[in-house]
């Protein structure tokens, strides 16, 4: 029996994996990191807000040269999620070539394993595939 852990804590695993942001209770600004206060309005209360699993590619690059240990090439992209929230991740199931990626193209959240540690725990990452 193996256990899984999300690569970052704003990825929620389960039957339908999803991204969950912290939403400022005062102004609605969305964050993914541990917060001390809201960078927009200064508020200190936050609500959990699950985000949509669909969105559009706002920008991308194809990384061909990287630090040792980072596998290239890959497509990095910023995705504007339907209903609010922007997130950065790799595009998957896409050939890493400029003509294969279109600005504005619709994508959907997917998850996949990125490794297993010495205790058998599997790390799960997210990416976006063409919708």
């Amino acid at each position, binding site marked *: 029996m193996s256990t899984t852990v999300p690569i970052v804590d704003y990825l929620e695993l389960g039957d339908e994996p999803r991204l969950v942001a912290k939403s400022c209770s005062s102004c609605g600004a969305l964050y993914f*990191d*541990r917060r001390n206060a809201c960078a927009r309005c200064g508020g200190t209360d936050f609500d959990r807000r699950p985000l949509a699993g669909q969105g559009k590619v706002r920008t991308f690059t194809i990384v061909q040269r990287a630090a040792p240990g980072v596998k290239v090439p890959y497509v990095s*992209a*910023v995705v*504007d999620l339907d209903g609010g929230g922007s997130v950065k991740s790799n595009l998957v199931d896409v050939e890493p070539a400029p003509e294969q990626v279109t*600005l504005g193209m619709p994508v959907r959240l997917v998850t996949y394993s990125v490794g297993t540690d010495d205790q058998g725990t599997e790390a799960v990452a997210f990416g976006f595939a063409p919708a």
Partner: protein
Amino acid sequence: MAKSSDDVWILGASMTKFGRYPGRDVVDLGSEAALAALSDGDVKIHDMQVMAVGNLAEAGGMVGQRIQKQIGQTGIPVYNVANACATGATAVRTVYMAIKSGEADMGLAVGVEVMGKAGLLGSAGRSKEGPNVYEPSGRYGAVMSPEGILGTGVMPGVFAQAGMEYAYENDGVTFEQFAKVAEKNHAHSVLNPLAQYQKAFSLEEIKAAEMVAYPNTLLMCCPTGDGAAAVVLVSGEKLASLSDEQRKRAVKISASVLTSDPWTERGQVQPDVNTLTRNAADAAYEKAGVSPQDLDLVELHDCFATAELLHYDNLRLCEPGGAGDFIDSGAPRRDGRTPVNVSGGLISKGHPLGATGVANLYEVATHLRGEAGDRQVPEAKVGLTHVIGLGSACAVHILEKAAS
């Protein structure tokens, strides 16, 4: 143009040639630039009442005082400052504020960096020591470095994405247009003996070079290198007491602005390099009473070709959304309407991080003094410098030739 006593002026300016200096340390290069700037301004370290030094690699290492110990320990206040790639400009602003506040009438700002062969790719590798056990850590509860898995956060990719975002918002900017920026800057650098590289490349060579992060090829990315630059600043009141020759060569700082990045929707995942640049530029234009059309030359932060293109728009050098047309038109070439990066820019002149924000003041001041030799922009009277460091910090300075 009155020499108001409220203004702050550049009295002396210098930069070392950018390049690789094995065997020379941050103190050697910083001292060389500092001594040259003092000599250029015909003043001595004993005339300085404040000193600020920008260096990133040894930001906590008292670089300012170590330079003092080599060129003159006079007991004056020293500020060691850091602001990513805006570090050098931040040192200049610190001296500027000391003069504006009345605490000093003359001061020295130095920017210096020794990078050796350090790359801009970071060291995000997932090599591990000891047993490998996933433990959430840091502000995102990450169990491993997300670089290359959750996209990229290192510079070539970040600035590539910034360029593609501009393309998305403005109905397409082509790979070729981005490449033209690099072609221009490499061509400019041929005339600059202080540039790290002085080699022209054809548009085809640039496009065919190894891809780093689409659309930036290797020839569209700044190199790493070592170097230093320094300026001596003086109050208008003090300047009035100096020699004719010093006053004639003095360059007025008509605006000095530093900004950070305000909150934006996507800023946490894709650094917004635009808003803080627009804010800095708009404030600088207003303070100087100068419009973008008045600029005779601009040295802006072309860490990557994509970045320069964005900043045409951010600095209001082109029509809104028209940065692609702007490069196509030839306007930013040395013989164009608004010459941009006639020094060769970061892409070819080099980018020793802490030195960059001072070196671009040196470049513009040199043109305003009519001392830029082969690369001189004729009749240059007003120029603008711009640097941006991720994190973020942006500095814009507007310089004007002394009325003679």
